[in-house]
């Protein structure tokens, strides 16, 4: 069993590394929670890269149903084809298209399946997947076929905590909460993304960044991706680091809501 030790572009805490390895060894889904922008989604990419495995991403939307991940039976197409006596209409298999979960099960090698933002979906969504994630198989009644995983995929599930997940589902997962990085870890993360960085600029930016985050009135707090964009914008424009704390140039990169920008302008000193 290979072990995950972080990757070149992803800085993970020791606890996180451990949680990933525990999930892999115990063959349980890993549930990752945390504020937006703490790198939940990127984690799956980093694991895939580090272990040299293929990554299958199943993006969950508010309209996604558990069934969509298994298979879709294109009944309309079949009905149309039957009108013209097309080839293979009696072969239902032709009209059954596997979803992301199905793809992950049938892949010839072990893959990593990322179920992204599971809390976006309906309240009952996670419950509908219990059996499939436990047994790693599902049945297609239309064709009488049972799809069983050739290799048990490593399942990573992310949640923004918008909805509470059902207990039965939680019981089956390994849980990890990604804390918002503290200043030192953030500095390390930023350096991974922007290698040749002026330390003075970084220092000023981090001070401003954590000060903005600490303002209670800010609704959408800036996160890791914003600070990286901001640094890049500042470097691109060649802004003098000493102006950062005073003027907060390119504020729009950091704050995405008009009200937040107004709040900051009023409260900054």
């Amino acid at each position: 069993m290979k072990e995950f030790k972080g990757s070149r572009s992803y800085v993970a805490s020791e606890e996180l590394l451990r949680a990933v390895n525990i999930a892999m060894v115990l063959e349980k889904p890993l549930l990752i929670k945390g504020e937006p922008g703490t790198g939940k989604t990127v984690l799956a990419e980093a694991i895939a890269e580090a272990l040299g495995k293929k990554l299958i991403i199943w993006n969950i939307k508010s309209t996604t149903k558990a069934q969509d991940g298994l298979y879709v039976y294109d009944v309309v197409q079949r009905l149309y084809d039957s009108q013209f006596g097309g080839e293979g209409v009696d072969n239902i298999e032709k009209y059954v298209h596997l979803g992301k979960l199905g793809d992950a099960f049938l892949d010839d090698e072990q893959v990593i399946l990322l179920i992204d933002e599971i809390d976006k979906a309906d309240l009952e969504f996670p419950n509908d997947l219990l059996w499939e994630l436990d047994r790693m198989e599902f049945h297609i009644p239309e064709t009488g076929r049972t799809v069983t995983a050739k290799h048990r995929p490593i399942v990573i599930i992310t949640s923004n905590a918008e909805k509470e997940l059902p207990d039965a589902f939680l019981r089956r997962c390994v849980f990890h909460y990604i804390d918002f990085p503290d200043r030192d870890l953030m500095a390390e993360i930023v350096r991974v993304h922007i290698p040749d960085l002026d330390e003075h600029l970084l220092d000023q930016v981090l001070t401003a960044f954590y000060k903005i985050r600490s303002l209670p009135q800010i609704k959408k707090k800036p996160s890791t991706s914003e600070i990286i964009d901001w640094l890049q914008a500042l470097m691109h424009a060649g802004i003098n680091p000493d102006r950062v704390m005073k003027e907060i140039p390119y504020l729009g990169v950091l704050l995405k809501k008009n009200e937040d920008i107004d709040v900051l302008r009023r409260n900054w000193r």
Partner: protein
Amino acid sequence: MFEDFLYLLRGSGLKVSMTEWMALQEALDKNLHEASFTGFYHLCRCLLVKSEADFDRFDSCFLEYFRNVPFQQEVSQELLNWLDRPNAGQGEYDEQQAELNETLSFDEIEEMFAERMNEQREQHNCGNYWVGTHGMSVFGNSGMSPIGIRVGGKSQGKRAFRVAGERRFRDFRNDNTLDTRQFQVALRRLRQYSGLVDLPKTEFDVDQTIQDTADNGGLLKVRYKRPRENTVKVLLLMDSGGSMEEFNTLCSALFQAVTKTGHFKNLKVYYFHNCIYSRLYNDPSLFYRNSTTTEWVIHNIPGDYKVIYVGDAQMAPHELRSRYYAARQNADLPQSGLEWFQLLRSKYRNSIWLNPSRRPDFGDYWSDTYDAIAEIFPMFPLTVEGLEDGMKKLLTR
């Protein structure tokens, strides 16, 4: 192995099941804790705890149960305060002491630590005996001993074999006994499916297709229908502060449920204090600079919104009736709280008032406003049942 720990956790309200416990045993068999104490702690936490809100509770159970294993008492806050000096100057490195420390076994260190905890009365730093920072002793933080127990502070040399008294997740704790899921389920009743509403026809209509195909002499006619989608839009107005403080948990459970249900087409939330006048506030702190005029809300939020008021409806009668608080400058606007409520009522036909408090049994002073408001809005108690009844009321046309 240590089943008592399972019962301790369950006793403190953590819902740890057998599934999780067996998974922990399996993980221990496979040596996933890497034979280290910290590893064991992380392993337990990521298998047994499923919400960051429970981390603190778990930490204190863990400390309580494994306290005898590593040390005798919890680390006092006083000691932690002494130890919170990350930027202090470094003490001197003492090679002899370092060698001596390395010969100590973990058990010996634990024992010494328990002793110090009993005898230490003041701050000691840079030394080699007491629990302190930047020194050579085997306890404290930011020190230079090649081995030891970190108490407080931040990991620096990464040489500690154990972290005592660390409860990082204190902030997340919410002693929220109310199950918001119950509320969410009740809120799900609040739905009105489109069908008449203008939406593209994207859903395959089996019945109509069969009907039309049959009418067409067996020649296929595919029919689509409009998808069913919740069209309910909600405006939530919450009383904040003052007499509402005691209902905070209840109201926040409702708020969580309403915002997290996410199945409404649109949701707007505003706050007021006791009674609504010319301004509604965007957050519960009720600052003037973060407010919206009630007039704007009435003009911009259409009448098909379902309005849910949450408040105890108890205030001094003059707060509801007097002209003092209302917009005095503009004669076109309502002149008292009561008039504002009436205006809102006439604009939004489907409104209910959810009340976390019961009608006061005695004293006209408090029940007066309660009754006056109950006359304007259908009032329901803020319980799961009351919420269900309220939802039914909101759906009547």
